[in-house]
Every structure is written in structure tokens, then in C-alpha cells.
């Protein structure tokens, strides 16, 4: 509406028929499974299922673990993103590739790697247990760690992209006006990349919430301690399919809300 003359001059492209057909098939491929889930949902007992102690326990643990994972990812991931965006040091690209590797690694492999590093017989796990008395496998801390491992890369690359695309002249101006590096970071850089920080944190949280493979491999499965929602869905599918469907629906709703919430930030930026 803002530019009526322009939109009139460039007519809408009409799509060739094969494209329309293939695109519809592609869209259907995503929509049909969701429809399947919605149509099989036992709506009448849905609230009852949601209120059951097992579901509530899994829900509570999932929220705790995913929010903790996001907090850790912010504390460790933002400095990492800043280092990748602002510093040049030998091996940077290799290090960067290693830190985003969990995005493409099968999560189960991540879980095995975590076990070999932080398990009782692992690289650091033995030392952690004997000197600090810290046990990670089979604990909620282990579940949080597994989620952080898989989800933090989403925050790192989002924040890094934000830092790279921001106008660094604001930082330069602040520096010439006598602000310390720390002040510049807190008062100029971070406020400027706030949209990326929020988008990265939300993506990271959503990924942590859906984490399955690394969690069940590294932290195991025990209700109230390490059985997060996706694990509960997997096991409920075998004994109580209705509960599994309702839990899946909750995860679906959360994911959808995240995507819709981020839509403006993402599509608006491009």
C-alpha cells in the first residue's frame, strides 16, 4: 500500500503449472503429518492427560532444563559469538566449525561424546567425580548439559550474524568519547544486537525443549530427574499413545508459537 505505483508497474509473477503442483505437494508433505496429529488428538481427555502427574512432571522438568540450558548458552555463547565476529586468531574457522558441529551431528552421537568426556570413565568425568564429587550422567544437570550442547550453536550463529551485520561505527564513536571496552560492550554493542540476542535465545530454547537423542544417551531416562517431554512422548507412545499425542501437541504448539513470534524479526530483517 505504501508504494502503489511501483506494485502496479511490476505485475505479480504467474507461476508455471508444474511449479504450482510441486509446491503444493511440498506444502502437503509438511501439513499432512500435522493434520494426522490433530485429528488423532483425544480432545475430550486432553486436559485430563495434561493434568496427569507424569505429564506435569515431564513438563516441569522440560521447562527447567530448557530455560537453564538457554541461560548457560547466553552466558557462554554470547562471548563466543563476539569472539568469532570481532577477533581474528589462528584456528578461528576450525574452532567455529567445531562449535556449530552439534547442529548437524546426530544428537545420539553428541550424547556418546558427552559420555566419553563427562561420564564416570570419561576424559574429565572421573576427575570431576573424585575431586569435586560432581556426577553428570543420570542427573538433571546432565540433561541440562546435553540440551546446552545441542542448542547453544543456534544462539552462537544467530548472535554472530547480528554482530557482523551491525554498524561498528557506533562502537568506534563510543570508544573515541572515552568509553571503556566493557562499557561499549554493555551500553552499545549488546543493545544494538538485541533482536539477534532474543531470536538466538528463543531458537536455542526451542531446540533445547525438543532435545531427545543426546539427553536419553547421556542423562538416561528417569521421571522427574531426566525424563523431559520428548523422552516422555517416546516412552508414552509404547504404553499410553493418547498421552503421547497430547504431549506432542504441546511441543508442536510451543514450536509454532516460537516460529510465529520470530517471523517478523527474521523475515522483516531480510
Amino acid at each position, binding site marked *: 500500500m505504501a508504494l502503489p505505483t511501483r506494485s502496479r508497474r511490476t505485475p505479480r509473477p504467474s507461476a508455471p503449472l508444474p511449479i504450482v503442483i510441486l509446491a503444493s505437494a511440498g506444502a502437503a508433505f509438511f501439513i499432512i503429518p500435522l493434520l494426522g496429529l490433530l485429528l488423532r488428538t483425544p480432545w475430550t481427555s486432553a486436559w485430563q492427560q495434561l493434568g496427569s502427574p507424569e505429564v506435569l512432571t515431564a513438563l516441569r522438568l522440560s521447562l527447567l532444563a530448557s530455560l537453564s540450558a538457554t541461560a548457560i548458552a547466553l552466558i557462554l555463547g554470547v562471548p563466543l559469538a563476539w569472539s568469532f565476529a570481532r577477533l581474528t586468531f589462528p584456528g578461528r574457522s576450525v574452532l567455529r566449525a567445531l562449535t556449530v558441529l552439534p547442529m548437524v551431528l546426530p544428537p545420539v552421537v553428541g550424547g*556418546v561424546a558427552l559420555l566419553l568426556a563427562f561420564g564416570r*570413565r570419561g576424559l574429565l568425568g572421573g576427575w570431576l567425580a573424585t575431586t569435586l564429587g560432581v556426577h553428570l550422567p543420570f542427573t538433571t544437570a546432565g540433561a541440562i548439559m546435553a540440551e546446552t550442547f545441542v542448542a547453544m550453536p543456534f544462539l552462537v550463529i544467530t548472535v554472530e550474524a547480528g554482530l557482523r551485520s551491525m554498524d561498528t561505527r557506533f562502537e568506534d564513536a563510543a570508544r573515541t568519547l572515552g568509553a571503556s571496552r566493557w562499557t561499549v560492550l554493555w551500553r552499545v554493542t549488546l543493545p544494538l544486537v538485541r533482536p539477534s540476542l532474543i531470536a538466538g535465545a528463543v531458537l536455542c530454547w526451542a531446540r533445547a525443549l525438543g532435545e531427545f537423542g543426546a539427553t536419553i544417551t547421556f*542423562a538416561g*531416562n*528417569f521421571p522427574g530427574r531426566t*525424563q523431559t517431554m520428548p523422552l516422555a512422548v517416546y516412552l508414552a507412545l*509404547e504404553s499410553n499413545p493418547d498421552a503421547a499425542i497430547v504431549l506432542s501437541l504441546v511441543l508442536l504448539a510451543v514450536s509454532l508459537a516460537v516460529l510465529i513470534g520470530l517471523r517478523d524479526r527474521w523475515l522483516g530483517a531480510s
Partner: protein
Amino acid sequence: MRARVAAALFIVVTLGVASACGPTGPVSASQSGPSGTLTVFAASSLNAAFTTIGADFEKRHPGTMVRFSFAGSSSLAAQIQQGALGDVFASADQPNMQKLIQAGLTAESPIVFARNDLEIVVGKGNPKHITSLADLARSGLVVVLCAPAVPCGHYAAQTLQKAGVRVTPASQEADVKSVLSKVALGEADAGIVYITDVKAAGDAVEGVAIPAVLNVVAEYPIVILKDSQNRALARAFVSYVLSEGRQTLARYGFTNP
């Protein structure tokens, strides 16, 4: 110790890809028997034995191919109920077989083809000196069991109840192989699995026998599925399992019904 970790890792990696290097059966190519591809859903605990049986069956009946889908019996039953296409289902317990019978998905009544006993699995050398089910209740011991929804978890609960032992597991694993790998990796001190799993794991773990009075015997029923596209081949496979297959099963630690 490094060798041990490597051995444990090796087990974890190869659990899903059991070797198919059993002795070759006599080849009788002249037989004009069944042909085509057969899909068999089988409990994870059958992985090694059925892979061997499948290879032997293919040699006995040239032109056939047996494909396996190994998973927890309850997962498989759920998959079949959701419409997964296959010819034969071999379960590690009766309740999951009953689910399919009630859903009208079986072609005939199932036959028990093997039994399996439970055993306590511990790390190599039994470092925590576990000798009985009662030892599993010791404090400071990390014990993992199968989840109650999975047959091995159901059986483990039964045997612990018989022994009057209360165990708080560190984890309720989704299948029996996960219990085994947690012990093989040294993350858990002990678990309750099938004898056949301890046998298949080789040197990385050791088994501690559970006395027969306290043990729970798992029954393995096999059935042809109603939606089987190749019933002749399915029947040939089931009868092979019930005849020559028994020797192979015994070699992997199963007992005959």
C-alpha cells in the same frame, strides 16, 4: 583402561549392526521354494540370533531376502498398529503379542519359539562384587533398568519383587541394549538384562546368575501378520525358526520352549 573404553565404545557402535557370520547351512539350490523379500519385526534382544538365522535362511532358499527391523517389542507393536507393513512379528513378551491379536492384525495364533532368562549384568571383573539381586539395593550403586513399559523392565520388576528387593534405578532405559551399553561404558554398575545380551556383549561385561526360583522367564512368541504380502515365504521363515533356527537360538543363549 583405554582399551576398555575402546572396547565398550565398539560394543555401543556395533550393537545395532550385529555380525552375520554364523556357520553356513547346506545349500540346496534345486529346491523350488518360496522367493521374494520378507520383512521381519523382531525384538532387539533377537538381533544377533535372528541376523544369523536370516542369513542361513537366505542361503537355504536362494532368491529370498530377509529384512529385519529390530526395536523394543512395544515400539514394534505400536508401529504395526499404526500400519507399518511387514510379514512376521517376533516379540520378547506375550502382552505385546496380545495387543496385535486383539487388534486383529495377526494371521494365525502365535507360537512360542524361544525362552530367555534374566541375568544381572556387571562391568568386567565385577568391580562392585555384586553376587545377588539383594546387592542391587546397596547404596551408592548405580543401577539402570529398562523402563516399565518395555518387556525387560516389566520382567526386571517382577524378579525384583520375587526377591523382595527394592531398587531405585538411576535411569529407566528405552530398551535392553541401552541398559547393556550403560554398563559396558562403566556409567552404571549393574543392570538387569537377558542372558543372551550378556553373551552377545562378549568381554566388556560379565553376568551374575539369578537363581531359577527368583528368575522370570521371558517367552518369545512369533506370528505371521495379517497384512503379509508373501504368506508362503512368511510361513517358510517361521517354520525355519521353529526347526533349524532353534540350534542357532541356543548358541546365542536362548532356551527351547
